[in-house]
């Protein structure tokens, strides 16, 4: 469990990136911080592994304040997936994945064996292990980034807009893969994105942020869609438009769901229809 208590981050130039933010991130679930740029979501994420130090307030992991912990040891105990991978360009894939293990003193061969196993876990072919990051596609690099974060088997996984730079098809693939991994591994995941659909797809708990990391609403995707807490949330998640504002329409082939512009978005299926749907 990760807990933010009245966390504030003020930069020397006076901007309040985060203003009195409190949140409980339950263990073994995925919490998504979502907001537009300037909402401080990445700052919040980077506070968890002390890449950013809060100006005031405390962050606790399992009841222990991280301010007491050595930042380097803390970072090694937390998996971190960056946008664009952030891989070491001069190290082969296998050595990138083994980075944390090697830093922690695991013998080279053992670290590489483990790295190979993790490549299997994230669905990368072992033949890619000897390549350099620049020889991989964006989606493959992102998988290597996830593998690197998982190699030391951390309890916590931080993901900073990890799929922001890949094309929509690969993104959908990586999102599905993330859901599958989480079903197997049950990590405590904190995921940052500006894409509300991604947030609703991956999050058990979704935190919608306004400027200065003001919490607009916290809840499960269903709770938020069913009962947006404010105008801001309603417009941010788009309840008035697109595929989240649907009406039923009777057609000769049964009831369908249409959006505001009258386009059919789906078909209304009864419980007994499921087998044939």
């Amino acid at each position, binding site marked *: 469990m990760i807990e933010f208590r009245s966390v504030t981050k003020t930069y020397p130039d006076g901007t309040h990136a985060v203003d009195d933010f409190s949140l409980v991130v339950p263990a073994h679930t995925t919490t998504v911080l979502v907001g537009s740029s300037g909402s401080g979501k990445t700052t919040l994420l980077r506070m968890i592994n002390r890449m950013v130090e809060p100006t005031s307030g405390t962050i606790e992991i399992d009841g222990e304040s991280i301010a007491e912990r050595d930042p380097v040891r803390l970072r090694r105990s937390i998996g*971190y997936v960056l946008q664009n*991978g*952030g891989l*070491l360009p*001069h190290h082969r894939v296998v050595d990138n994945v083994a980075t944390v293990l090697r830093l922690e003193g695991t013998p080279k061969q053992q670290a590489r064996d483990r790295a190979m196993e993790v490549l299997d876990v994230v669905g990368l072919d072992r033949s890619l292990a000897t390549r*350099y*990051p*620049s*020889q991989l596609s964006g989606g493959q690099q992102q998988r290597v980034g996830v593998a690197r974060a998982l190699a030391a088997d951390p309890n916590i996984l931080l993901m900073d807009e990890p799929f922001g730079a890949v094309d929509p098809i690969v993104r959908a693939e990586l999102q599905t893969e993330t859901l599958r991994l989480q079903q197997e591994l049950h990590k405590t995941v904190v995921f940052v994105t500006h894409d509300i659909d991604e947030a609703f797809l991956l999050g058990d708990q979704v935190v919608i942020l306004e400027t200065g990391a003001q919490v607009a609403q916290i809840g499960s995707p269903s709770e938020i869609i069913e009962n947006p807490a404010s105008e801001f949330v309603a417009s941010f998640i788009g309840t008035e438009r697109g595929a989240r504002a649907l009406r039923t329409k009777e057609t000769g082939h049964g009831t369908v769901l249409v959006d505001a512009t009258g386009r059919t978005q789906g078909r209304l299926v009864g419980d007994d229809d499921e087998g044939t749907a």
Partner: protein
Amino acid sequence: MDLFADAIAWIFSPEAQSGSLPLSEAIWTHLAFTFVSVLIAAAVAVPAGWLVGHTGRGREAAVALSGAARAVPSFGLVLLLVLVFGVTHKVGASTTAFVLLAIPPILAGAYSGVEAVERRVVDGARAVGMTSRQVLGKVEIPLGLPLLIGGLRSATLQVVATVTLAGYVGSWGLGFYIVQGIQIRDFAQILGAALVIVVLAVVLDLLFALLERAVVPHGVAARRSAD
């Protein structure tokens, strides 16, 4: 063209090989001055440059220093230091001048190499738990090596040319033949010595060019060839 023929003839003539200063000895002294000066300069400038690049501290001073040093007249510096050190310390004075001239390009190569590493790579290295020292040693230095070698390359070229001036203050190096040649109006000797210096410079430049290519890290080279 006669002058060139004479100059080349002088290079291979018996008096150049066994005069008061044999050519081979002058070449060795010239190279020794160059390498010792560049090595001393590197011992100072490389760690300093890495530190500036890594911490970002003292960057303005480093930029100003490497910029201003370009304007320093090398001949003036050599003569000034001989006067300051005293005529009995000509070797020390000249070497100091060469070291001072070699420091700025090496410093610039070292810090710009570290600075040129993509911020997200450094950020990623820190975020997975590398100490500051590990980030420098495992990421910034290896990735910045080509630019550092580039700095050493321009320092070496500058010094190998400037060591010629040592001929004015002492009877060493290939500059000696030029100074002596002007006095005795032996143009073949002047041009011959100048040609040898040119050959040294070109050969050194070539060696550094090869080295520069050799130190490009594998993964980075792979991307270049793919582009």
